[in-house]
């Protein structure tokens, strides 16, 4: 890796920059805070002729996803980006995109869902879409936004997968925070993503196909089963693509990132940018001789259950941090982790901590507190607790 190029850019610009290098055939998008700069940066690339992408500035997110579905079905590489209410508005078509097996990549700048209206970060939007059949990747920092956006294209388009991918980045924290990002040369990215090989494109009029038929009880179930299998394939294919990406970038991705996990007895599990804060606290506690570690989740869908089980079995206590809730049930990540742990030979104690709703900061003292509770073995599996909340 000679001649490394490092840019000081925000998460939004990193996403747009990756999109520029990918140079998809079509981008259809609608602006929504805090995703807006992605659309703005990309529109400028188009206006300056830096990409040959056709961009449609649609009148709503619903139409953005609809147009992207049309474009992908036509045989184009198509991308979009959204956030919160925008994702909610497009959700109907988000399900259709995955069910039609269209390899769309979408940046999701995570933001709280209304009401009350709040433009800041939490994961309620991503969790709303967690069962939509999209692969969901989460980024800790701006570098990961850039890398995973590029990687997502290959994952989505892999012949055994053919599923859309959401690349999640924390609203404002990443989307508007400037960080140094090592970017790849254009031609390296171009070569890595390659050409899309369309399957059953609408524009092939010599071989006409019918997309989106009426599918009643006699076939719908089988089609859903195929989608389930495609998701399983995504789990298998992801490390292969990550390995290829490692070769061009030197940066290694996997379903999860274990941080100081070797002998860790007390482990935190989290999604997104808060992993950075947790790493700092882990380092600090390690210096004090505490056996703490972090298991960062890169891939939330398909859920890396085997890794969760492998890394968390026989630990003393696990703290799961969620930046979203599930009303009347357990928080989404906690529920998934706890469920995975049911099957392990030596079950650790587990505890659920919800934090950061509507953009509230997760401070080191919150992380420290949660670790202290774990180290005191003061966790109750059935009790949801809150970090940084005025009770």
């Amino acid at each position, binding site marked *: 890796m000679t001649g490394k190029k490092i840019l000081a850019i925000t998460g939004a610009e990193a996403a747009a920059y990756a999109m520029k290098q990918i140079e998809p*055939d*079509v981008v*259809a998008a609608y602006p929504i805070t805090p995703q807006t700069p992605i659309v703005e940066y990309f529109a400028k690339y188009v206006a300056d002729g830096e990409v*040959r*992408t*056709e961009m*449609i*500035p*649609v*009148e*709503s997110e*619903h*139409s953005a996803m*609809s*147009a*992207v*579905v*049309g*474009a*992908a*079905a*036509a*045989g*184009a590489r*198509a991308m979009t980006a959204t956030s919160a209410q925008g994702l909610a508005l497009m959700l*109907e*078509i988000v399900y*259709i995109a995955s069910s039609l097996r269209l390899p769309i990549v979408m940046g999701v700048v995570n933001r709280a869902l209304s009401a009350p209206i709040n433009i800041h970060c939490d994961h309620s939007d991503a969790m709303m879409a967690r069962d939509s059949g999209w692969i969901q990747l989460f980024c800790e920092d701006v570098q990961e936004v850039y890398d995973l956006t590029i990687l997502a294209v290959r994952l989505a388009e892999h012949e055994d997968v053919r599923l859309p991918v959401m690349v999640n980045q924390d609203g404002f924290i990443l989307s508007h925070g400037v960080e140094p990002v090592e970017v790849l040369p254009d031609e390296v990215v171009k070569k890595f993503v390659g050409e899309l090989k369309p399957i059953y494109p*609408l*524009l*092939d*009029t010599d071989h*006409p*196909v*019918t*997309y*989106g*038929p*009426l*599918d*009643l009880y*006699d*076939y719908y179930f089988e089609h859903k089963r195929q989608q389930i299998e495609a998701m399983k394939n995504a789990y298998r294919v992801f490390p292969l693509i990550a390995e290829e990406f490692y070769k061009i970038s030197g940066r290694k991705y996997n379903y999860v990132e274990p941080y100081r996990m070797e002998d860790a007895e007390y482990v935190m599990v989290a999604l997104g940018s808060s992993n950075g804060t947790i790493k700092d606290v882990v380092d600090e506690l390690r210096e004090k001789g505490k056996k703490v570690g972090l298991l960062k989740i890169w891939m939330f869908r398909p859920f890396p259950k085997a890794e969760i089980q492998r890394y968390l079995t026989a630990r003393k206590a696990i703290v799961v941090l969620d930046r979203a809730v599930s009303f009347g049930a357990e928080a989404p990540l906690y529920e998934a982790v706890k469920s995975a742990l049911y099957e392990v030979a030596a079950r650790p104690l587990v505890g659920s901590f919800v934090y950061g709703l509507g953009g509230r900061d997760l401070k080191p003292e919150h992380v420290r507190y949660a670790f202290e509770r774990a180290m005191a073995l003061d966790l109750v599996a059935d009790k949801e607790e809150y970090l940084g909340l005025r009770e």
Partner: protein
Amino acid sequence: MPLTMKKLAEIFTNRETGLTQGHRMCPGCGAPMTVKIVLMVAKALGYEPVIGFATGCMEVSSTIFPYTSWSVPYIHNAFENVAATISGVEIAYRALKKAGKIPSDKKYAFIAFGGDGGTYDIGLQSLSGALERGHKMLYVLYDNEGYMNTGNQRSGSTPPGADTTTAPVGKLLPGKIQLKKNIVEIVAGHENVYAATVTTGEPMDFINKVEKALQFDGPAFIAALSPCVRYWRMDESKSVDITKLAVQTKYWPLYEVERGVYRVTRKPTSFKPIAEFVKAQGRFRLLLQRPDAEQIINELQQYVDRRWERLLALEEATKDKPIR
């Protein structure tokens, strides 16, 4: 030479229109006739049709998996987004052509079909967005004046007095109170569009307008009055005739608006009263039993008369004054 029915019949004796036999639409339904005329004109002019369809009767009846009645590329996405979907297909075409990824000699026709629900109501935003963006597409509305796929509910296109399940003629209310939404005016209010009304009862007018729409440099919109024999409660052999009657009673004037210039394409020398159109259909049966039936029909008559006069005035006023 312009296309004629005879010419189309000759061309398609041994050639598929794109919509094959065996779809499960009701006998006498206006929708498949509308679709076929559009497809035949497109193909006869050398276009490769690529079809988008909004959720509706026609969509569910023509694509019951594992079968499909479509021998041309077809996509159904959702109820309200066929215009956005086809705009995505059209933009993909532009991108792939620019990148040299598709043959440049193919002449595509991107055609969206939607019923009145998917066009007047839930799909209006998506349609307006696509029109404003200026996609080279043809949007064809088949207007049967109600939500038929879900069983006779009112739509923004349902005329007053028609009996529907969500605006029924009751002891207190005479069915739907409001007039039809004027969709052609809404479409024509966008810049650089071609908008026209057609019916299967006037096929030559229909064919000419499809030809014009396909050749128009920008988005085109065709509204076809398209009877639903079940909801309109009439004999299935009468669905073409009733659209003729709709034209003769000024209920469905045939006209076009090209970049703001109005042209009335059929001017009957004498008109029939709107009551004939109303009385020919069972959906107005309950209205006709009401004591205020005459008053409602009179109001409808006054409305169509005024609209006709207005159309003629617009034709005169906009002559040689295109918006662009």
